């Protein structure tokens, strides 16, 4: 295997692994940056997104859990993957709004530790609810064969391998994961940089009171920010779900890397979350190639070093007041 193809593979694999982290980190980061709310239940939103994705896209057969006991042996709407990709963000957006209203809001004025504790507890509750309902074994979440198929249009095939120059076969879906992430992050970026909504959010991050003094009811965009952050986590669940097995622990398992992504990239900026996710993904891929046995240790070590030497994160400078 040539060094060039090695490098390309590390890049591709790193990007696609990073993509999921980016989707989670963008939401986590803007919520942390604008609302100063530490959401340890962000992984739960990913979990909800994944299960909702399975439910909407497929008709799965259950083999344990309460739903199974209640007679739901096969389960799901079987609307296809594209429907999940559209509906899940909407659903999780609503979940995010509810979470903001009923969980986050009472805790805005309480210390970080209380926020961590209550959302940590909430994450346990959500995970357990899913375990009880769907059982703790893994559901198959197959990659979509095609997307955008409707009516007579067969859709674009997305599953299986695709032959790339130099490196050979590569799982096609993973390229789509990178692509979908890029599009979504770009959309959010445009929304934040070029719309009134984004303007209010950016200004509010810096000086919320002044925004209110200008006559703008800042809580509304904040709620929307929370919803968007949640929706992105939901999308991450839909596009990332088919990459791995789906079971109730995926939410808590992904939380730690998502948080590390945020702090590596720098809290509060979308660009930071993107850079954090890419750095995290590439580092993982590179370490896996170079020193597999130490890759996880190395990853946490790098996260710790970034936190110690650059607490504002790689792109945190933007947020430091002049």
């Amino acid at each position: 295997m040539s060094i060039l193809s090695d490098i390309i593979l590390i890049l591709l694999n790193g990007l696609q692994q990073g993509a999921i982290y980016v989707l989670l980190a963008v939401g986590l980061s803007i919520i942390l940056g604008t609302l100063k709310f530490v959401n340890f239940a962000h992984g739960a939103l990913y979990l909800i997104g994944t299960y909702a994705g399975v439910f909407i896209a497929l008709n799965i057969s259950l083999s344990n859990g309460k739903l199974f006991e209640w007679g739901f042996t096969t389960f799901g709407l079987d609307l296809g993957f594209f429907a999940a990709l559209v509906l899940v963000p909407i659903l999780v957006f609503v979940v995010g709004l509810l979470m903001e209203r009923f969980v986050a809001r009472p805790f805005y004025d309480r210390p970080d530790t209380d926020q961590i504790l209550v959302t940590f507890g909430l994450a346990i509750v959500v995970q357990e609810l899913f375990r009880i309902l769907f059982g703790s074994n893994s559901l198959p979440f197959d990659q979509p064969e095609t997307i955008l198929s409707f009516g007579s249009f067969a859709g674009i095939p997305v599953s299986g391998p695709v032959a790339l120059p130099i490196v050979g076969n590569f799982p096609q879906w993973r390229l789509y994961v990178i692509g979908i992430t890029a599009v979504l992050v770009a959309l959010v970026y445009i929304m934040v940089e070029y719309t009134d909504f984004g303007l209010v959010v950016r200004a509010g991050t810096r000086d919320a009171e002044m925004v209110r003094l200008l006559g703008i009811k800042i809580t509304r965009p904040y709620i929307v920010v929370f919803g968007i952050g949640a929706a992105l986590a939901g999308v991450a669940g839909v596009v990332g779900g088919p990459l791995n097995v789906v079971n109730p622990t995926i939410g808590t398992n992904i939380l730690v890397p998502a948080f590390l992504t945020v702090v590596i990239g720098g809290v509060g900026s979308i660009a930071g979350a993107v850079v954090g996710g890419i750095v995290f993904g590439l580092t993982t891929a590179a370490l896996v190639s170079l020193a597999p046995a130490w890759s996880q240790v190395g990853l946490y070590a790098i996260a710790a070093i970034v936190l110690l030497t650059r607490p504002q994160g790689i792109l945190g400078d933007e947020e430091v007041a002049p």
Partner: protein
Amino acid sequence: MSEEDANPNAKDANPSSSEALVGSDLFGRWEQLRGREGTVVGLTAIFVAVFPWLFARAPVVSDFLQGYQSLATLILIWGIFAIGFDLLLGYTGLLSFGHAAFWGGAAYASGIVAKNISGDPIVMVVSGTLFAILLAWLLGFLSLRRGGIYFSILTLAFAQMMYFMAASPLAFLTNGENGLTGVDVGNLFGVIHLEADIPSIGGMLLGTWLYAFVGFIFVAAVAVAYRILNSPYGMVFRAIRENEQRAEFVGLNVWRYKLMAFIISGAFAGIAGSLFTIHGAYVPLQSLFWTESGDIVVMTVLGGAGSMFGPVLGVGVYLYIENIVSTVQALTIPFTDIVLIKDFGFYWHLLLGIVFVAVVWVVPDGLWGIIGRVRTFVSDRMGGER
């Protein structure tokens, strides 16, 4: 839970009680007594002495509780861990999400010492604790450079590093995923086999020598923790929690005190981790995993961070639910066969999660705080009748 009923009066760490209830009657004298160090340690010792009997062997009570000896031992071990953790979280106000590093690290250290050097329980405890102290010094030195959520994440990252190191690169020492097996715990003082039952009445109360050994260390840990809280440190820790900047500006070296809080807390975790190895003659790899850190947070907060015995109560409730309630198959109306909830035990983790959220939300001083309020209510009533 009845083990807690044994000492609802072995009280708070705050001896200079704000309610200056001094009277010549019995109640007043009791109020005076309860703050004293000797009383607290004495009541703890009495509690430790009757706990396993009540929990596992007493007629009616233990049949109701469904307890058993080894769980009693385990509750005390985790109790030591929680007392130490609370010194950091409850008193100094630092939320570590990486205390598994000290618990699991000490468990491995004492296990490895037992396998390779000496299985003497005292040597194991000392070596495990020393390891935890050194590790806490190092990790505290690094992690305390950051505050708030960053501190929590740093401790988490370091603990996860330890976990992954034990899982694979250091598997030649730790036996990796299978956990450290074949730990031979030697006899205490060379003669007492810890697994053996204590003869006569001692055995009836305490059960095994192992429990006696753990119980002795538990009482000692309570005494030391209580003393620390009543030493200048206890005051400084609370001062840092209340107003760190002001503490700096009265001339205290806040950073070093925080480091000491971290190390002391690590040392308690180390003692507990070493005892865990002695208790099980085995170290699971999970002892280093971050969920273990999460468990100690949940236990401490559930019971009541910032009180001396709250975290121990939290440990009791947590382990009780995890090990006993989880095996209950149906929740029935007392003294009837009417089933309220089928498969009740199946929901144990959900139940715990909901209780935890409720505690954080509504009663930040935890279950112990609730007991405290009930006690205040009762004592006010009693005071009012005079």
